[in-house]
């Protein structure tokens, strides 16, 4: 047998295993606050408390801002998320939030419309980006945290780029929501670009280049009190990010 046969052997796996691997993830008693950012963990970190807020821009209060730091680059900011009352969420989400001991708080949906229905019509989630519609290959992962945020994350593939998307909806008891990046690599360079989305929301783009990789690009913006973030894993310029933002 050779490698080809090994690969072909994968075509003969038990069908129940194949179907089970496509089931939506269900997690018990699991707090996913911050965990939907995991893919972007290398670039987006929820940073430690204790830094004094400084400048504010587009609803983001900068906690650390040192893009020129020798030996690394760092920025972090706290976002002004709206704390939506539990009553504004769908009945299903309310039941999860109000359960004394939630048994399920993580779901996967195929389409953005299904996500909107699940979250509830009184939460002003933006329509799906025209540029990204139907480009997800992972489905939309939604986690409901009883007292903090409801997080939506997915990965899109567009023009050969993997694009990670996150949206965070603040709950009544949300303390603070912080986003930032630290790159402990002196060969990297990070550039910040201020722009606006298609609907006029102020957005921050951070483009990091240098080192051995082709670089990557992140963006953050608030729209009607909800945080949206994108992370393009392989980007040497901001063109694709700007195209995406223009469709929001």
């Amino acid at each position, binding site marked *: *047998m050779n490698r080809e046969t090994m690969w072909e052997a994968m075509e003969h796996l038990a069908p129940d*295993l194949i179907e089970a*691997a*496509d089931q939506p993830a269900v997690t018990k008693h699991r707090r996913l606050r911050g965990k939907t950012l995991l893919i972007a963990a290398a670039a987006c970190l929820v940073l430690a408390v204790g830094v004094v807020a400084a400048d504010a821009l587009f609803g983001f209060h900068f906690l650390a801002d040192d893009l020129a730091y020798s030996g690394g680059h760092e920025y972090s900011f706290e976002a002004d998320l709206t704390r939506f009352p539990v009553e504004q969420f769908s009945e299903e989400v309310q039941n999860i939030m109000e359960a004394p001991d939630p048994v399920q708080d993580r779901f*996967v949906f195929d389409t953005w419309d299904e996500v909107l229905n699940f979250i509830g019509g009184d939460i002003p989630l933006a329509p799906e980006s025209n540029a990204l519609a139907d480009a997800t290959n992972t489905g939309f992962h939604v986690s409901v945290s009883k007292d903090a945020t409801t997080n939506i994350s997915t*990965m899109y593939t567009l023009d050969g780029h993997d694009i990670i998307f996150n949206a965070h909806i603040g709950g009544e008891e949300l303390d603070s929501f912080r986003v930032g990046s630290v790159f402990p690599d002196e060969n990297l360079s990070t550039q910040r670009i201020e722009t606006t989305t298609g609907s006029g929301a102020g957005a921050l783009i951070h483009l990091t280049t240098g080192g051995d990789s082709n670089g990557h690009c992140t963006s953050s913006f608030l729209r009607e009190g909800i945080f949206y973030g994108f992370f393009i894993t392989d980007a040497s310029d901001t063109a694709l990010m700007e195209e995406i933002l223009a469709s929001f």
Partner: protein
Amino acid sequence: MTSDTLINLLEQRAGQALGELDAAYGVYCRSIARNILKNEEDAEECVSDAYLAVWNAIPPARPEHFKAWLGTIVRNGALRRKRQNSAVDTLREELSEALPDRQTVVGQCEAKALGEAISAFLRSQQPDVRTAFLRRYWYADSVEAVALRLGWSVSKTKSALFRARKKLKDHLIKEELWHE
């Protein structure tokens, strides 16, 4: 719509059967095709070919595990279209790490028997590891997508897949399906 209802429609040669098939499994099929082909147009053609294959196969076929059966048709069709695709080559290379060079399988073990051995190995693994392995090597998800699905970091996912491949190699050697 359940798979049984869908199969009944196909058996009746009902006009709406393919529409219902697409409504129920279109996202699933396109996800597999896109993962492998990395091209929207090719993926769409691949899914259309799969639907035609389903139409031609049922009846007489009545697959017990319809979703996996359909997924296999899409996957095989996509792999045929993309034999030279570098993404597929990468997956093959990664998976074959379980079987280093200069190793040969004793007794001309057929792919089907090896598939059964891999299935048995996967059943012995933790559910998350099993899912990670199947998402990566059957559904052709990217490592990042596997991480997203499981709520793992990318590095943890890579590490888990590496360990799973190593364990698989040990399992196949122990089962005397492979030896150096």
